[in-house]
């Protein structure tokens, strides 16, 4: 009786294991399992196709060494920083995008991948690594970025001539006898040429940021100077809109690129002024904390509905496009601000209550430090690399 029972259990276990292997074998993504020390115990069919190693060859190898090193000293993560290691030590889940894996041929392949813990009675029994080859997507993104770059640069030269010519006419070369209609038309053409120029500049900035090529230098930038400089850029628009600007800058510095940080703040201030009612106040403030500096821009505008808050940092996304187009926005300002802040290893996030205004916060780390994940904020930071 007992012998028969254990035979049945063994058969069922065997059946179950084969079923599991069959299911994982049919999955298009590579799936690799490790034991609690990080050694590979399982590799599905897709993983062997993607990497060029057979399941037998992968069996028993250290997963980090097998996947993240080329054998010749090149590696996408240091062994101690490897997300698989973190999963095994702390059972944390990670998702990374466009991260290099090395296969048998020694060439890096960009993968989107994740690692999660396999737990057995609260003990971490191993990790499961799931990965997908994104070479094609990366190549397409590159083509798109190259295209944008070439087109934008080609647009620039004629735009410069257009802006210059219209600027000259506006500055007085139209002559004294030009009628008011002609002047109005030149003004209109000039302001639209300027707007088109801003759009091209913004697209180029984003394209550079996407390639990680946004130039950022690093200096200790004095806060009063940074905040006053950013406020000065939007002062004209604020006055025209009947909005007052209040700047509250403590002494102290922030570690970053003055030109880019001014641009990031100017985008936030421009939006705040744009959405403020006449007579409203826009506040620009800075505050040091133990991680670095927080810069805040607060307005008394209509606020942003909860379900839309996560989208404001997307490219070309506007709360009300008809409205802001009429006022010359490009829909790229917040996306650029996000790129700039991320190039500084910082965060930008939004607190907003409909009817009670919005506060945008840029958190920048002090020199040589890092800002920890800020839980439930509407943060701009992408999900990659986080648990």
């Amino acid at each position, binding site marked *: 009786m007992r012998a028969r029972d254990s035979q049945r259990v063994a058969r069922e276990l065997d059946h179950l294991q084969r079923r599991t292997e069959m299911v994982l074998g049919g999955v298009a993504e590579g799936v690799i399992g490790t034991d609690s020390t990080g050694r590979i115990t399982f590799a599905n069919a897709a993983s062997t196709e993607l990497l060029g190693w057979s399941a037998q060859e992968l069996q028993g190898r250290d997963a980090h060494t097998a996947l993240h090193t080329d054998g010749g000293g090149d590696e996408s993560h240091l062994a101690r920083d490897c997300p698989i290691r973190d999963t095994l030590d702390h059972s944390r889940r990670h998702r990374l995008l466009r991260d290099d894996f090395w296969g048998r041929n020694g060439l890096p392949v960009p993968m989107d991948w994740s690692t999660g813990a396999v737990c057995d009675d609260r003990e971490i029994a191993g990790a499961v690594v799931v990965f997908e080859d994104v070479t094609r997507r990366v190549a397409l993104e590159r083509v798109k970025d190259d295209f944008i770059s070439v087109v934008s640069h080609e647009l620039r030269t004629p735009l*410069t*001539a257009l802006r210059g010519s219209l600027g*000259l006419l506006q500055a*007085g*070369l139209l002559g004294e006898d030009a009628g008011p209609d002609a002047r109005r038309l030149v003004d209109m053409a000039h302001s639209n040429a300027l707007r088109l*120029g801003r759009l091209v500049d913004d697209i180029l900035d984003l394209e550079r940021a996407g390639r990680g*090529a946004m*130039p950022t230098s690093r200096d200790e930038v004095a806060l009063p100077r940074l905040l006053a400089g950013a406020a000065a850029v939007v002062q004209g628009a604020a006055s025209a809109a009947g909005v007052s600007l209040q700047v509250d800058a403590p002494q102290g510095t922030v570690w970053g690129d003055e030109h880019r940080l001014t641009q990031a703040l100017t985008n936030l201030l421009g939006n705040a002024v744009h959405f403020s009612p006449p007579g409203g106040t826009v506040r620009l403030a800075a505050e040091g904390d133990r991680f670095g500096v927080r810069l805040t821009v607060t307005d008394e505008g209509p606020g942003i509905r909860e379900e839309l808050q996560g989208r404001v940092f997307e490219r070309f996304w506007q709360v009300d496009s008809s409205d802001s187009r009429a006022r010359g926005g490009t829909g790229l300002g917040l996306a650029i601000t996000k790129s700039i802040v991320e190039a500084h290893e910082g965060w930008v996030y939004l607190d907003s209550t409909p009817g009670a205004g919005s506060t945008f916060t840029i958190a920048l780390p002090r020199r040589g430090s890092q800002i920890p994940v800020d839980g439930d904020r509407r943060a701009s930071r992408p999900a990659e690399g986080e648990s």
Partner: protein
Amino acid sequence: MTHRVLVVDDEPDIREIARLALERLAGWTVLTAASGEEALEVATRERPEAVLLDVMMPGLDGPSTAQRMAADPATRDIPILLVTAKVRAGERQVLEESPVVGVLAKPFDPATLAADVERALGWRS
């Protein structure tokens, strides 16, 4: 205060806009050159008070033209302003190492070009 300057740009429209801005709005005298090579020739012959030099030109580009001018006793005392679109990461160093007095942002505003040039050259504070 009137001045006599050389504007160097391979784009004819941009040269023309700079010329009109400086001559018609500010009353300066403007010489023009369409390339770095032509700029060296005109600068040697005409001895302008300053040179506005576009960075991106086919053939001899702005920084190389500036190097040549600085190396030639006939032109080395003429102050140079480089005219460039937003500085890209790789260009920063080239610009810093160029023997020029300053950099003017492109696209320039024709209405304020003369004043911007004077400020960059220290002709007025």
